[in-house]
């Protein structure tokens, strides 16, 4: 690394440090029984029950609250709400406390008035409705998860099975989605447009996709990286994966410091780093058959402590499950993407693409079912931070040793 580059990184780290310290020292804390009033945006679909509905909302960038409301009004993704109520605390089954608001006052409920965003939200809802009315609950939930990272439509039991078998990353919004979208769009546009123009349209496409998927940290991460890589191509430069990743992390943390403790953000970055460097360790065994196993293992090695800290369990069979199902994911993404596109152009074709997904989805479901009932997980009640640090230091030294050779 050149001196200039080191200087740049030191500068960036200092800048980020100031931003983080300022952000976290000015955070408000909340207590039970406190009366709060805030304006927030609905960024997940309301869950509806027989007698009430719940919304999971942000009080501020860091704190979230589970709001219980009457069924008589409907709230949509993207809506803004002004809420006033008394905070309560609910302890979940896994002993984590969360803030709740029971039947607070909703003083105002207004739609997004930015036309572009409003259009994006309506596209998103239309795709969700179409998938749900053409496929069974598990298949449509899986498709929405795989293509857009929208998890809320999956039945709870199946979501649990997915977690047990260690394939949650497949239905979470991940960088792979963005990679597929950008590759597909570029391939498409390049066939009839000039390179520069094709790249520009692909970038717009990526941003549109990220908006439909709901600006999840991992999608934003991959989108920024994708855009940097594309821009580098317009400017005629080679891609620098590590630098791209670091700069992206910097930009995201600087803009949204609350991501520092976001699991999705941590998983996305560590997995990307892992995929950059760890496969090298398994080079000896690399062939087209072992490829998806090596990918899985690399990502898992890189993210293990984060998974253990946040989810408390690790499935011993997850490598097998991943090896069995991962090949279906790119196909499902492409088919689901095409289906989503044709919903607005020619719905019967959208239906055809969705039907083509069914055999893969049934297969995916069968594998998850099989291993969820017969699998074994290692459960850990708490994973100490010191062990996490030791783990990553060990991993780093192993990699440094390998790359020195």
């Amino acid at each position: 690394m050149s001196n200039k580059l080191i200087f740049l990184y030191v500068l960036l780290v200092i800048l980020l440090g100031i931003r983080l310290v300022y952000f976290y020292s000015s955070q408000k804390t909340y207590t039970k029984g406190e009366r709060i009033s805030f304006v927030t945006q609905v960024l997940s679909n309301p869950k509806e029950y027989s007698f009430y509905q719940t919304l999971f909302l942000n009080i501020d960038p860091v704190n979230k609250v589970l709001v219980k409301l009457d069924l008589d009004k409907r709230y949509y993704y993207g809506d803004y709400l002004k809420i006033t109520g008394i905070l309560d605390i609910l302890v979940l089954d896994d002993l984590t406390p969360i803030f709740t608001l029971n039947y607070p006052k909703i003083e105002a409920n207004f739609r997004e008035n930015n036309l572009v965003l409003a259009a994006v939200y309506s596209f998103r809802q239309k795709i969700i409705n179409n998938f749900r009315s053409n496929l069974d609950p598990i298949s449509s939930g899986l498709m929405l998860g795989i293509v857009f990272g929208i998890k809320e439509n999956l039945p709870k039991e199946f979501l649990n099975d997915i977690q047990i078998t260690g394939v949650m990353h497949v239905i979470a919004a991940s960088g792979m989605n963005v990679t597929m979208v950008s590759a597909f769009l570029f391939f498409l546009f390049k066939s009839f447009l000039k390179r520069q123009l094709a790249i520009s349209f692909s970038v717009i496409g990526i941003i549109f996709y990220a908006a439909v998927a709901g600006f999840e940290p991992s999608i934003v991460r991959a989108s920024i990286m994708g855009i940097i890589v594309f821009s580098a191509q317009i400017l005629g430069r080679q891609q620098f994966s590590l630098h791209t990743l670091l700069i992206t992390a910097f930009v995201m943390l600087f803009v949204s410091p609350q991501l520092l403790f976001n699991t999705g953000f941590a998983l996305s970055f560590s997995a990307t780093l892992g995929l950059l460097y760890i496969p090298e360790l398994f080079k000896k065994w690399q062939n087209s058959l072992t490829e998806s196993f090596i990918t899985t293992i690399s990502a898992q090695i890189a993210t293990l402590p984060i998974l253990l800290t946040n989810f408390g369990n690790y499935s011993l069979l997850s490598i097998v499950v991943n090896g069995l199902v991962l090949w279906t994911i790119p196909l499902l993404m492409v088919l689901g993407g095409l289906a989503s596109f044709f919903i607005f152009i020619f719905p019967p074709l959208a239906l055809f693409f969705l039907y083509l997904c069914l055999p893969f989805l049934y297969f995916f479901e069968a594998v998850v079912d099989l291993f969820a009932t017969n699998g074994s997980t290692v459960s850990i009640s708490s994973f100490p931070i010191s062990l996490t640090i030791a783990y990553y230091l060990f991993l780093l030294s192993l990699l440094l040793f390998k790359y020195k050779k």
Partner: protein
Amino acid sequence: MKKHITYLLISLFFLLGIFLFQDFSTDDKNLHIIYCDVGQGDAIYIKTPGGKDVLVDGGPNDKVLDCLTKHMPFWDRTIDLMVATHPDADHITGLVSVLERYTVLHFVTSNTLKETGIYKRLVEAIKNEGLKPRYVYQNDKIDFGDGVVSNIYWPRESAFTEFNNIAKVNELSVVQLVSFGDFQALLTGDAGFSVQDRLLGLISDVDVLMLPHHGSKTGVSESFISTLKPSLSVISVGSKNRYGHPTTFILSLLAKYKIKTLRTDKVGEIEVVSNGETFWLSN
């Protein structure tokens, strides 16, 4: 690229296989009545020999969707007739989910009202589907055109002067006798024994009785059981529900008349199949 085309061809091949399998297995010219396992509530899916799909109530959650998924082929997203026996949450919540995901052609219910949020949701969903609720009364008849007929035995029109159509919706539940040849199955919603006693002279010799009101103590009287003489009774109930359904009184009554009883909380969903002469249980 070539690899992907191969995958797609394989997918198309399997899709055809799934199509043939589901088409063959769901087209047997029998009447199927499936008491779905939806927990504490009712949801009954009926497939007539001519392939009409009927849903009577939707249960207290969206588990009814799993039931429909299991019994309808993947390309069939149309419910020909939806019946809401009465507007209580444990009967209509699932209907909202079904209306949002399926095309529903006809909606039939009792002329009752409710002030609850979920009822408003149902009304909204029916409107969005472009449906007009059709209110049914005693002596109405729904003919599916393939030998299956549903005769409505309750509510009587005069019942609306007796029972308030907001507060007493249970007593105004749609009670229907689904018949196919010699086979008869009675679906009762939550109508209590004050209603049943008035039906005593009208219905007899039922093959399958769905116990009213999940086997609650107000659900059924001894004279009703002794007149109907069902060979099978079905109780749709959630395990460890807070109402104590089904009551020991009902269970001992059924035992006294030696009526085989199946409960959704014990055996999961219950599928009754009939060819118009006899009936059997499918698993």
